[in-house]
């Protein structure tokens, strides 16, 4: 009897759904005009490849209202990113262009981040910048933004869409760089590597992972890779690295996508012999590498500085001024390796471990002193 009742309800529900399906109101997507290059300021907004198209939106008169819809906030990279965004928005020549710069961080709830971006679009902001929780989920937001004539840009964890401007670091290349360096530093043609990955499901994590394995698999050497999830967070990375060392006893090299300081600390705490470590660009990681370099802790350090948010804001302003800009902007990678890691330039002994070094983009005339960034609060404005 229960079963018949349930089936009956399911059928009625299906009726209601198909009714909703019959009435469709898809808004016509307009969006910016596609033009051929070159774009404005090619030294800063470098097209991703020869096939990259250029967007030219109708010119709007400033000053502009720009919003940043951030998702995840729980790590130091994101906090520094928000501080950098505010520091950039406060630089006099940028401030003159901005009527309002608002930041909302929604946490890990995807629906909430989509709603936040929609709220900015609904409220008539001129440009909405997204650091997406999920690369696939923002297609409807892009559609609504383009229909409303709002410039939509994403960076770091970009929206995978051909209809929105993305500011991209070659994450796959970063994974490749790490693998190449480890292969060069590890003697022998077999061994065990530890890969400390980022939050699952994320495009940056996926791309770095794929690049790393692409080079390893193509090298002809036999390396077993143990994967753990460190979530780009020092505490988490330290814990999972310690667990992995406890279980596997010995590794020949480590690739840590983030939380690198924690990864190296776990290595030291476990009394594991020093091995080559390829990590992100945290100040603390480079400090530890410099301290233990003579004992054999050799490191390479590459990543995507949080200052890329400033390049994205600059791109938003350029787009709103009616300039052609590439749909996919390629950012330079910040990368150094042993023995070239220099004090006062590549790391700062008196700054916090959590500071991400490598915040300047000379091609964009964007640069920050450490104090300029750390002086800003994480507050949403």
């Amino acid at each position: 009897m229960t079963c018949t009742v349930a089936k009956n309800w399911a059928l009625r529900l299906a009726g209601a759904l198909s009714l909703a399906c019959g009435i469709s109101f898809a808004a016509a997507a307009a969006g910016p005009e596609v033009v051929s290059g070159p774009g404005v300021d090619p030294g800063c907004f470098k097209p991703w490849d020869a096939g990259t198209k250029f967007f030219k939106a109708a010119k709007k008169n400033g000053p502009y209202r720009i919003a940043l819809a951030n998702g995840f906030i729980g790590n130091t990279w994101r906090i520094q990113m928000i501080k950098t965004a505010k520091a950039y928005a406060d630089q006099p020549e940028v401030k003159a262009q901005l009527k309002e710069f608002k930041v909302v961080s929604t946490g890990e709830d995807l629906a909430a981040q989509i709603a936040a971006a929609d709220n900015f679009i609904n409220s008539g902001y001129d440009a909405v910048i997204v650091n997406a929780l999920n690369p696939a989920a923002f297609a409807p937001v892009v559609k609504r933004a383009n229909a409303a004539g709002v410039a939509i840009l994403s960076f770091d964890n970009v929206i995978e869409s051909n209809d929105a401007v993305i500011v991209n670091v070659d994450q796959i290349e970063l994974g490749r760089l790490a693998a190449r360096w480890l292969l060069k530093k590890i003697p022998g043609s077999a061994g065990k590597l530890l890969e400390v990955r980022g939050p699952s499901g994320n495009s940056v994590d996926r791309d770095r992972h794929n690049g790393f394995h692409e080079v390893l698999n193509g090298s002809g050497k036999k390396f077993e890779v143990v994967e753990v999830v460190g979530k780009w967070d020092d505490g988490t990375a330290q814990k999972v690295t310690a667990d992995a060392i406890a279980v596997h006893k010995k590794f020949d090299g480590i690739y840590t996508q983030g939380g690198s300081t924690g990864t190296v600390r776990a290595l030291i705490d476990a009394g594991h012999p020093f091995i080559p470590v390829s990590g992100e660009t945290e100040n603390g990681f480079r400090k530890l590498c410099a301290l233990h370099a003579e004992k054999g802790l050799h490191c390479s350090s590459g990543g995507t500085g949080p200052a890329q948010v400033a390049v994205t804001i600059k791109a938003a302003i350029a787009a709103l001024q009616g300039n052609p800009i590439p749909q996919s902007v390629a950012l330079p990678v910040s990368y150094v390796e042993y023995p070239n890691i220099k004090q006062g330039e590549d790391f700062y002994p008196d700054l916090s471990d959590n500071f991400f070094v490598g915040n300047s983009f000379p091609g964009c005339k964007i640069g920050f002193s450490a104090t300029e960034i750390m002086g800003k609060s994480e507050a949403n404005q």
Partner: protein
Amino acid sequence: MKDWNYRLAEQRGLILAIAVFTAMFAFYIAKHPAGLTANVATTAANKGVLLALVGMAQTIPVVTSGLDLSVGMVFVLANCVASKIMTGSPLATAFGALAVLAVGILCGAINGAVVVYGRLQPIIATLATGTIYYGLALALRPAPGGDINTDFADAVSGSLPGGIPASLVLLVGVVAVVWIPYRRSVLGRAAYAVGSSEQAAYMSGVPIATAKFLAYVLAGLFAAIAGLLLTCITYSGEASAAIGGSYTLNSIAAVVIGGTSLFGGSGGAIGSIFGAFVLRTIGDLLFVFDMDALWQPLFLGAVLLVAVSLGSFRLLRIKNRLELYR
């Protein structure tokens, strides 16, 4: 008159939730730069209905004095399944949507079977099955993505003429077609009887096993409808443990704010809907207030605590506190 009083007292939790929601939402709209336009309403509705459906899913096991810790994971699994099969021609899409609902019903039936026939504690049983459902979702969608019928998705997540959010219509439809008939059916009343006193219900010949089983099945169905809606809002699926976990916890909060007792036997899904709306509006307030990012969780927690405490104001009105324990 007496009867009217009784009914009012019975619905006090619901009325309070509606009042709190109305006040908060009115404040939010008053402060919103765009006011109440069709788009603003649709944005708020999509987010709210999503949690409202998961809250409804949680309500029914709670009414039977159980708990379903797998609702969030069924929601995520349904999202991943939908992102795989809700594509193609309108007919294929409709069948895909029905199949997603069937997956939800199946997950619910497994929960019900484990709890009722396996005689395990609902909390432990659904914690375990929820992990299984999440595992399935991850196997199905190791990385976020999907290709779905966007016309269908726009229809469900867009707005109808007159600016009425389609997702709100979907919610009203689910209430009218599933919840109200269920609440009035013998098995619906049996769920309340089981929740208030299982022994008394047994002695009165109430079909205890069937009522409990059906409660979990409906929870699975509601969670799957929510998963379907999430797929329409995002055009994609993602096996995210963070999303599953947060919706499970928020669904319990929605149930409590909506006036349903965690001890079972009272309350209802309508209350949970408004409970979910209250929760979502608290989140929206961050958009109109300029709040420091590091203070946001504290602010949310404090408002949540106030909202939950409103339910215990009953204490103040009772002459003898022992009456509470009767």
